[in-house]
């Protein structure tokens, strides 16, 4: 784990996201997939973003790297990288930022590599796009990168095609590709989900080492709390397009403040605790068309009160973290209201 004293608190944030909203216009109205999300990442910091499928975590990542798929679009809000706005850049300029200053790692290493080009061609092309290098220099840098991500026999393997690599090795190539131009920030979207556990451990160790050595900040998007616990400095928990809780990883995991985070932590089967039943949160996350008024979590919440049904909570300081829950407000949740879902 990266010691928290590594990040000086007076540092200006590397990435600032302010009131980001991502929407999808559809025939039956506009869906708000990411709703008023704000966070920042300090240089060298690993911010974990967790949530269940459909919580909007990948969309937030895609909005930052400027790869929202139409008709999805940023409706409002700001994204700043090193103080400069990047959310409204023209396509060509964003292309230069992406790759040079922001690297991206996606879930499936097979789809993020071109199967028709050799690894060397893909690496050299990326390096030459962003750095002024000759073909020979770029090739040497590509070999060095492959060595750095732990591919044995990099000199020979560089001319292989993606299908000649195993899943774990392919993900290493993708990481090398993201590191080509020495980016300041890497957005890693489920980088270990497609891999076996033993390979997963290798990839996480690699990511951690590279960030330490290069001082690269990482936004790690995943649904796997275990990966977050091992890798991240801070965590943002997303629910139905909003941040439910954000705080230092230790506090969020050991002492969650939001009822959703609490339930989520309890529902993860862990070694060392073999109870009869797992804690479960009844029901499921609402669809985007059916997000209830007030707090989006209220139909599933055991602590809900009258206020939760009408008024939407913002992030409120709670211990070392901040949680979007009226429980932590001085006025509280109001008169208790029974939970709707009796789904055992």
């Amino acid at each position, binding site marked *: *784990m990266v010691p928290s004293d590594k990040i000086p608190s007076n540092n200006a944030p590397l990435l600032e996201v302010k009131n980001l909203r991502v929407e999808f216009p559809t025939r039956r109205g506009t869906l708000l997939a990411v709703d008023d999300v704000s966070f920042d990442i300090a240089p060298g910091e690993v911010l974990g973003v967790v949530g*269940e*499928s459909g919580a909007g975590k990948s969309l937030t990542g895609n909005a930052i790297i400027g790869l929202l798929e139409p008709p999805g679009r940023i409706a409002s809000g700001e994204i700043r990288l090193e103080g400069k706005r990047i959310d409204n850049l023209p396509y060509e300029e964003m292309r230069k930022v992406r790759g040079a200053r922001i690297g991206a790692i996606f879930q499936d290493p097979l789809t993020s590599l071109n199967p028709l080009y050799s690894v060397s061609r893909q690496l050299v092309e990326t390096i030459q796009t962003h750095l002024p290098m000759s073909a020979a220099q770029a090739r040497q840098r590509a070999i060095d990168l492959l060595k750095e991500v732990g591919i044995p026999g990099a000199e020979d393997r560089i001319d292989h095609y993606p299908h000649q690599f*195993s*899943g*774990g*090795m392919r993900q290493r190539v993708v990481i090398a590709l993201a590191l080509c131009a020495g980016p300041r920030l890497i957005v890693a979207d489920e980088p270990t989900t497609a891999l*076996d*556990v*033993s*390979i*997963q*451990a*290798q990839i*996480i*160790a690699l990511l951690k080492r590279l960030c330490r050595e290069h001082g690269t900040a990482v936004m790690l998007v995943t*649904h*796997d*709390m*275990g*990966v977050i*616990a*091992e890798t991240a400095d801070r965590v943002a928990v997303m629910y139905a397009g909003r941040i439910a809780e954000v705080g230092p*990883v*230790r506090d969020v*995991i*050991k002492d969650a403040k939001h009822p959703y985070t609490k*339930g*989520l*932590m*309890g*529902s*993860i*089967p*862990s*070694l*060392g*605790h*073999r109870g*009869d*039943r*797992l*804690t*479960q*949160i*009844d029901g*499921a*996350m609402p669809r985007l068309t059916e997000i209830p008024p007030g707090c989006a979590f209220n139909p599933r919440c055991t602590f809900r009160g009258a206020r939760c049904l009408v008024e939407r909570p913002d992030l409120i300081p709670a211990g070392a973290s901040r949680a979007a829950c009226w429980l932590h407000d001085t006025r509280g949740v109001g008169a208790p209201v029974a939970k709707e879902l009796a*789904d*055992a």
Partner: protein
Amino acid sequence: MPDGAIKPQFVRIQGLKRYFDVSAPWLVRKIEGRPRQLVRAVDGIDIEIARGETFSLVGESGCGKSTVARLVVGLYPPTAGRIEFDGNDISARRRQGAHSTLRRRLQMIFQDPFASLNPRWRVFDIIAEPIRAFGLSSGKADLEKQVSDLLRQVRLTPADGRKFPHEFSGGQRQRISIARALASRPEFLVCDEPTSALDVSVQAQILNLMMDLQRRFGLTYLFISHNLAVVYHISTRVGVMYLGRLVEQAPTDTLFKRPKHPYTRMLLDTIPDLEMTGRQRSPVAGEVPSPIDPPSGCTFHPRCPFANDRCKAERPALLAIEGGAVACHAIEEGRLAVEDRSYAAAR
């Protein structure tokens, strides 16, 4: 739950093998002088499952665990070996219908609830199909009552029967799969990664439901998973597979407290640590070799830190130890000591 009184060998798998032919076409082979190529997906495993227990198979992708599941329910015929279910051999090919009474008692739940339900059928028909196929209802009213009961058992409402699968979330669909599997009143359920396509909070709901149903109907589970924490939670006994072979099997607590095979230890070491006890995860070098051309001797030897010449040459047999069994020369010779691990006492 298991005790001394239960009848052993409810399900008995002996020397089960399944090879897949992945050779090039005959003409290409003859012209290029290439040999036949076989994937030894399952290469001789023995498992015994007692009535009422949950036996789990864990391993990484490609180790053959899903093939075992498919062999047990008869979706593949085995290349060799026997599968006995309550004393009857179900592995031999028989004329159609001969197995139907046995088939009724054994059902399967699949991994992907998006692919395992027919999108053109209403939920009622999906669940009613096994009841109709095995002739288990006395009439329309009885059929409707049975389906309603099944839907209620999996925490859905009878009104959900009129909907189509696409109207449900992943977790709800997996409940429908479970209801369908329960429709023929089976005694033995083969579950192939039933929760790995689901989110954690939904996974907890499904695991709790499966444990409740097991208690209520005395079900026996063969549970296939790659998630060791889930396996730890739900199983009575666990078998660890590597490249088509069983390398270790033991009661759950023993396996997690005193793992023996180096591969089991490695798998346990790689579980992400939610407790953040600072335990160093030791990433093991190397990856699972191809089952087309598995390593000689013990197939784990290229990745094993304790391998010697004997491991490279001789395939270890599964030998009984501490209530379980392990296939490892280093353990057998006493080169590798068995130690207590501390995860089981972390919380």
